[in-house]
C-alpha cells in the first residue's frame, strides 16, 4: 500500500505523518497518532461515536479518509480540556450523569460542541436536532440533552 504524507493540526498541535493511502481518519487517529477519543462504533455513519470536528464542521472520522484532511484543523474530545480543567461540556456530562458506558460520549460531546460554537443558547429542540446523528444505548438521551443545556447555561452565565 502506498504511503502518503498528511499534515494537519490536531487539537492545536501540528501533525505530519506518512499513512497508508485510503486509511480512514478514525484509524489514523487511533492507531497511528494515539488519540483514542474518537470511538469506532458502526463504521457505517450511523452511530456518531467517531464524530470529530474538521475545520469547524462535524464529521464522521470512520467515513473520512485521512489524506483528504491535509492542512485541516481537527478537534477531538481529547483536545477539549485545558490545563487539566475539563471543558464545560465534559463537566456537564459528569454532573448530569449523562455518561454510562461512555462509548458514545466523545461523539456526543463533539456534536454538542459544534452546536454551542454556533448557537450558544440553544433550545431543547435544537439540542435534539444537533445530537440526532449520535446513538446512545445507555442513557435514554434525556441526561445528555440536559448536559448540553446545562453547559449552555454555564457558558451564558460566564459570559454575563
Amino acid at each position, binding site marked *: *500500500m502506498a504511503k*502518503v504524507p498528511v499534515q494537519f493540526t490536531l487539537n492545536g498541535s501540528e501533525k505530519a505523518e506518512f499513512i497508508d493511502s*485510503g486509511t*480512514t481518519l478514525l484509524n489514523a487517529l487511533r492507531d497511528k497518532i494515539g488519540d483514542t477519543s474518537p470511538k469506532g462504533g458502526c463504521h457505517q*455513519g450511523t452511530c456518531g461515536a467517531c464524530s470529530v470536528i474538521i475545520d469547524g464542521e462535524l464529521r464522521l472520522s470512520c467515513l*473520512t*479518509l485521512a489524506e483528504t484532511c491535509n492542512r485541516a484543523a481537527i478537534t477531538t474530545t481529547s483536545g477539549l480540556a485545558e490545563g487539566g480543567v475539563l471543558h464545560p461540556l465534559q463537566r456537564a456530562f459528569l454532573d448530569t450523569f449523562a455518561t454510562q458506558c461512555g462509548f458514545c460520549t466523545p461523539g456526543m460531546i463533539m456534536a454538542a460542541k459544534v452546536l454551542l460554537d454556533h448557537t450558544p443558547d440553544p433550545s431543547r429542540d435544537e439540542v435534539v436536532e444537533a445530537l440526532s446523528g449520535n446513538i446512545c444505548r445507555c442513557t435514554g438521551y434525556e441526561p445528555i440533552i440536559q448536559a448540553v443545556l446545562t453547559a449552555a447555561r454555564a457558558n451564558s452565565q460566564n459570559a454575563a
Partner: protein
Amino acid sequence: MALALQTFPTVKDANAALQTAGTRYLGGGTLVIRAANEGDVSVSGLVRSTDPALSAIAIAGGKVRIGASVSMAAIARHPDLGALAKAARAVGGPAIRNMATVGGNLFAPAPYGDFAVALLALDATVGTEDGELPIEIFLAKRDGSRAIVTAVSFTLPKDDSFRFLKVSRVKPKGVSVLSIAAVLERVADGTVSSARIALGCMADRPVRAKAAEKALLGKSLDRDGIAAALAAVTEGIAPITDPIASAWYRAEVLPVHLGRLLLS
C-alpha cells in the same frame, strides 16, 4: 482494508482513472467508504477530483446549478435555496449532512436518496463528463454509469409550488419509510395545471407517480379533487422491504401521506 486514493485536479483526469475496473468515485464518502468498511470487495481503489467547480452553487435567472460535491448542509443553509432546505435536511444527521453530496445522493439506494427524490420532482438535469441527461433517464441507467457526475441543474420552483415530505419512525433523524416530493403549478382558480410527483422507497430508486400526476390535472387540491390521485398513486410501484417497513406497509401508507402533502 485500506483502499488507495488517487486525487486529480480535473474531472477529466479523474474520469479517465475511473475507467479502471474496481475503482469507485469518492465524493463525501458516506456511500463508498461505508461500503469499503463493510468489506465490499468489489471496490479496489478510489478516485476523486478537487475541481472547484464541483463545489459551487450558481443561481441566475431562476436557474440553479449545484456542483456534485456540494453537501446537503451547504444546500440547507443557502439563502436562495430555502425551498429545498427541507429536502436537504431530510438526509441523515448533522455530520452526514456535512459530508453527503448531491452527486452521491443520486446513487444512494432506497431507503436513502431523499434529496434525489426532490431533484426528480424538480425535473433536474444531471451533468456528467459525457454530457447532460434528464434525471429520470440518469436514475434508470445509474447502475452502469462510469462517468463522474459534475452537477445537477434545475429551474428554481415558484413560491409554494414545491412540496416535500419524508416519513420516518425516528425523529428528527431516521431512515425513510417513504419520501414524496411534488412540484404543483396551479392556475388562478386554484386548479392544478401541471404536476410532477416523485416517490422514494417505492422502488430501489426514486420513481415518478405518473398516474397520480395525470389524475391531478384540472383538479383542486381538496379532498374530492385529490381522491383520484390517491387511488392512482400506487400504480406501478414496487416498494422495498427492509427493517424499517415492509413493501406492503409502504404501499398501504403511501396514499395517506400523499394526501397529507397535497392538502398541506
